């Protein structure tokens, strides 16, 4: 037999990206797939280049120039929001059923100069860079330079924040010890519960007015502030109603110009829907989706919150509308699926507003992290899966688009049938859906102090962070570079990359006599860094509470109206600050090298190791290989390494968990990295675990790349040793070769693996099904892929252990095995 050779220079592109990932029609399990409308909408969404719109900035700047100082801050914010809703371009595209764009057209993103004012240079970079490009015409840059930039100079939240932070914080921030989410975007938005399907904006206004009437100006010293906040909330309700009515008017106008009868009817229905919601509670399935979408657009137009907005348990919210209409015969399953597809594409039309500076480096993505929760439990603890859940899974599989993110929620009460359906989508290898464990995250929420009912209505948004949907401000404050803290410890407070002093002098590590001394120094350093981070996060929180309230968001989050307080000012029922810790695998493995080789077995001295690390292992390949191959690493159910991970995790909890925030509540810990592990790796020198300078650190709570060499069951047991209930979320990525997911019974076993992990207390798991590109990457960089086990009937071997021609053959086979 001749060897199948393939060109390894060019990484084959997935057809999916451009054409929609579609079932190979020759395969027998083909589903109906997208209809022509959805296909066209998807094509437009995927193929439209991301661009910048200066419209919102111009409206806002003009309004601020004319009005700043005339109103209280909340009312000023609400009136500005109303002005945008009155003036901004309204877009209804051909084929659309769900309407509304934040910018003037799909993929067009406004700027938020009141938070961060982009410079002319920023625009030139955004316009010309290869990745995450946002186009903008020169004429718009000129207008911005003339109209927008001069007014905001020195007035933006970003400038006001940076002009007041301590120098030592700045040094640590610039060294990459942590990031700060709120330095250029508003504190993280949140997820909604079911109230907007029961109440329209006019109902909310009634409620607001009732609370205004009952304000006690004689005994409540905050009554005036509350009045201003409540007035602002009422104005913002009007703003979204105006915004919707302008869509109705445009739809009616388009209907008059339209000749196609079917489209005329659709446009008239759009007009009817937009006059009904958000002013009133929705009555139909279509109205329910449009209701959410207007609320979503309102929150992301009002301000630029980190992690956009989430509908929460969208399948559960839509279920009553779906069932009612199916029973009445006014909706078919296919129509429901079409509407959900239209919604999905709407979210994809909304890339995140472009970031600048360090934040752009750590979060270089168009993704704005809307995460649709599918499945899970209801507030009474029963199974939440319904027909809409299955429709959503089909849409995820068929559309294969970047946004919205989506996840399935698998409790012990979740039927196997649903998990199986989700696993079949996972097998497609798009990375979606991720899988969450409500049984554990409900405990997390209860442990944080939420009521059981509110916890059950909660879930996960953004990446993996847990919150009480519709009732909580859970603000992500930034990532913590835990391996960098070890690096600074090993350099006695100095950042070796810049030679700047960024930490405490915890002693010369060459003088440390035992591991415990080293570990204590690391923990001292950790506490020092966390305290700096918290100090500035509290300051920024106060800045937002005072100067950038979000009255519209406050309308839809429980208790803001009754408390008369803003979302950023302790209005919600629950108020949490998270610090997201990254690099558990990297730091555990590095400590394991120090513990086992330097202190216990004395394989080599601290001096030898630190010298090798300092020169990025140049000329020390044998030492580096010995480290990689002869050290207990995290993720292999090896107590020597896992014990270190558990201890670090517990000490991170001790450093962060329970620290007070400005809202009278607390900081909690998250274990996630999103894309930040790449940035943190770039600002980190070589590490004792054999990782080269500049390479990514480990993501979430996953083992270091390729270091889990004993298979998925061992990874899961290692991760199960962390008391995840005490976190606000952990993240585990697992890599699978397609041949492990080939048959129906392989899918069942994947489902069992997920259930096993959840039995052990796992919060989240997601799977990357290895494709050709991954295997080519493994050829180029073998040590990051030591976990890749190739299995074929009766045979198994590690990919790295195979010679090049056999690897090429496996690559060719993998291509054939794609689903």
């Amino acid at each position: 037999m001749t060897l199948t050779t393939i060109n390894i220079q060019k990484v084959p592109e997935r057809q999916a990206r451009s054409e929609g990932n579609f079932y190979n029609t020759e395969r027998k399990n083909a589903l109906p797939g997208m209809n022509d409308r959805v296909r066209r909408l998807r094509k437009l969404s995927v193929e439209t280049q991301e661009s910048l719109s200066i419209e919102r900035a111009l409206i806002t700047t003009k309004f601020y120039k004319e009005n700043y100082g005339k109103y209280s801050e909340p009312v000023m914010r609400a009136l500005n929001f109303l002005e945008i809703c009155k003036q901004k371009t309204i877009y209804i595209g051909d084929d659309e059923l769900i309407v509304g764009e934040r910018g003037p057209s799909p993929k067009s993103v406004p700027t938020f100069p009141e938070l961060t004012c982009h410079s002319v240079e920023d625009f030139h970079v955004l316009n010309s860079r290869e990745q995450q490009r946002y186009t903008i015409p020169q004429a718009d840059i000129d207008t911005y330079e003339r109209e927008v930039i001069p007014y905001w100079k020195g007035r933006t939240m970003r400038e006001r924040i940076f002009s007041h932070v301590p120098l030592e914080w700045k040094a640590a921030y610039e060294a990459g010890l942590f990031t700060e989410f709120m330095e250029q975007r508003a504190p993280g938005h949140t997820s909604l519960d079911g109230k907007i399907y029961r109440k329209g904006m006019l109902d909310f206004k009634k409620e607001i007015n009732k609370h205004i009437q009952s304000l006690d100006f004689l005994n409540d010293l905050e009554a005036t502030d509350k009045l201003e906040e409540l007035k602002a909330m009422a104005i913002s309700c009007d703003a979204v109603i105006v915004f919707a009515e302008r869509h109705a008017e445009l739809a009616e106008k388009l209907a008059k110009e339209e000749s196609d009868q079917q489209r005329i009817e659709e446009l008239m229905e759009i007009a009817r829907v937009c006059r009904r919601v958000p002013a009133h509670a929705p009555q139909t399935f279509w109205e329910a989706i449009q209701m959410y979408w207007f609320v979503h657009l309102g929150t992301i137009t009002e301000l630029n919150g980190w992690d956009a907005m989430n509908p929460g348990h969208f399948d559960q919210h839509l279920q009553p509308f779906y069932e009612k209409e199916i029973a009445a015969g006014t909706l078919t399953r296919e129509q429901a699926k079409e509407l959900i597809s239209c919604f999905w594409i709407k979210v994809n039309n909304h890339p995140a507003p472009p970031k600048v500076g360090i934040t752009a480096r750590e979060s270089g993505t168009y993704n704005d992290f809307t995460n649709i929760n599918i499945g899970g439990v209801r507030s009474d603890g029963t199974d939440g899966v319904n027909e809409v859940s299955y429709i959503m899974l089909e849409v995820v599989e068929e559309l294969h688009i970047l946004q919205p993110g989506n996840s399935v929620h698998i409790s012990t009460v979740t039927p196997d049938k649903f998990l199986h359906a989700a696993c079949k989508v996972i097998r497609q290898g798009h990375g979606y859906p991720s899988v969450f464990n409500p049984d554990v995250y409900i405990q997390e929420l209860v442990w944080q102090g939420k009521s059981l009912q509110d916890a059950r209505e909660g879930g996960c948004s953004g990446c993996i962070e847990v919150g009480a949907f519709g009732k909580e401000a859970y603000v992500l404050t930034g990532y913590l570079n835990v391996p960098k803290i070890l690096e600074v410890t090993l350099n006695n407070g100095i950042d070796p990359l810049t030679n700047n002093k960024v930490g405490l002098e915890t002693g010369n590590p060459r003088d440390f006599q035992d591991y415990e001394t080293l570990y204590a120094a690391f923990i001292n350093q950790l506490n020092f860094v966390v305290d700096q981070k918290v100090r500035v996060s509290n300051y920024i929180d106060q800045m937002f509470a005072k100067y950038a309230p979000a009255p519209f968001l406050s309308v839809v989050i429980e208790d803001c109206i009754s408390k008369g307080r803003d979302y950023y000012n302790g209005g919600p029922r629950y108020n949490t600050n998270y610090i997201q810790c990254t690099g558990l695998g990297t730091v555990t493995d590095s400590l394991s090298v120090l513990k086992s080789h330097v202190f216990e077995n004395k394989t080599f001295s601290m001096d030898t190791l630190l010298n090798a690390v300092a020169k990025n292992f140049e000329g020390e390949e044998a030492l580096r290989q010995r480290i990689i191959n002869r050290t207990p690493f995290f993720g292999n159910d090896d107590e020597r390494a896992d014990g270190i991970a558990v201890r670090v995790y517990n000490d991170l909890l001790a450093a962060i968990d329970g620290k007070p925030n400005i809202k009278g509540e607390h900081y909690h810990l998250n274990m996630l990295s999103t894309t930040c592990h790449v940035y943190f790796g770039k600002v980190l020198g070589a590490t004792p675990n054999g990782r080269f300078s500049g390479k990514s650190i480990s993501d979430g709570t996953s083992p270091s790349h390729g270091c889990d060499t004993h298979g998925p069951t061992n990874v899961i047991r290692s991760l199960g040793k962390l008391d995840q209930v005490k976190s606000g979320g952990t993240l585990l990525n697992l890599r699978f070769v397609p041949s492990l997911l080939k048959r129906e019974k392989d899918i069942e076993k994947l489902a069992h693996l997920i259930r096993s992990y959840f039995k052990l207390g796992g919060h989240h798991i997601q799977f990357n099904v290895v494709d050709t590109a991954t295997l080519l990457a493994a050829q180029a960089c073998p040590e990051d892929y030591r976990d890749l086990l190739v299995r074929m009937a009766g045979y198994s071997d590690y990919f790295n252990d195979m010679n090049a021609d056999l690897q090429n053959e496996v690559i060719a086979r993998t291509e054939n095995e794609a689903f």
Partner: protein
Amino acid sequence: MLPLIFDIRRYSINDGPGIRITIFMKGCPLKCQWCHNPESQSPEVQKLYTASKCIGAKDCIDVCPENALTLTGEGIVTDYNVCNLCGKCADVCPTKAIEMSGKLFSTDDLLEIIERERVHIDQSGGGVTFSGGEPLMHPEFLIEMLKACGDKGLHRVVDTCGFAPTETLLGVARHTDLFLYDLKLLDPELHKRWTGVDNRRILQNLRTLAEAGANINIRIPLIKNVNTQMDEIVKMADFINSLPGTKPKVNLLPYHNIARGKYQKLHMDYNHHDLEEPTQMDLDNVVAIFRKSGIETEIGG
């Protein structure tokens, strides 16, 4: 005497029901030309060398008490006339380019390793599979392990080529929940030519096992032009249908030549018979014949 173990595979999903842990023992009475795990054949410790991993650190040369190693343009070469397989070279190799295949485990150690998989086994209805090599070459150890696993309520699978004394097989059968029984060829001459042994005992054992009421899945490695011929397949189907008791299911394991890398590591010759993988048409034909004769058949383990 304890056998050497050459691999312990977790998340094993092709060796019986559920998620399993499979224990691979060294030593096999057969020498199948297509063997995917050549390191399983010898019951002794063997040295594996992966040239692509070697960085020429020479620690192995320095540590070798017999001076058996030299560094050449093709990597480390072992003079097996003097090498005593002490494994010191593998211990010091920084990249694991040299590894020793075959390690001793006490039954207690193995049971502890198996017990760690409990959550996955319980969740999936999985268990333990003993494979090889040929696990029946180590009956005392195997039975001890099977008994202990039975005491723990674990589902037990034995993957065998069937070439063992009938009493051994029946003794093992008393503690086994499912046999994965390999069937290669029905023609005794061809069987001898391709595997090194006559198949009469294998076939008779299979019949005896079926008579004893054992639960059996038959596994057939399919190699083009070795056993994919129509008449051979028909003979196999007839034989399976002639077995007493519940009719066994058949798993077809298509031959592939990816394993040739392992032969290089062992310095063994590979595939001097130019074995070929069965085509999709071959597979379809075989499946059709088996199914037509009423045998439940699937491709893969």
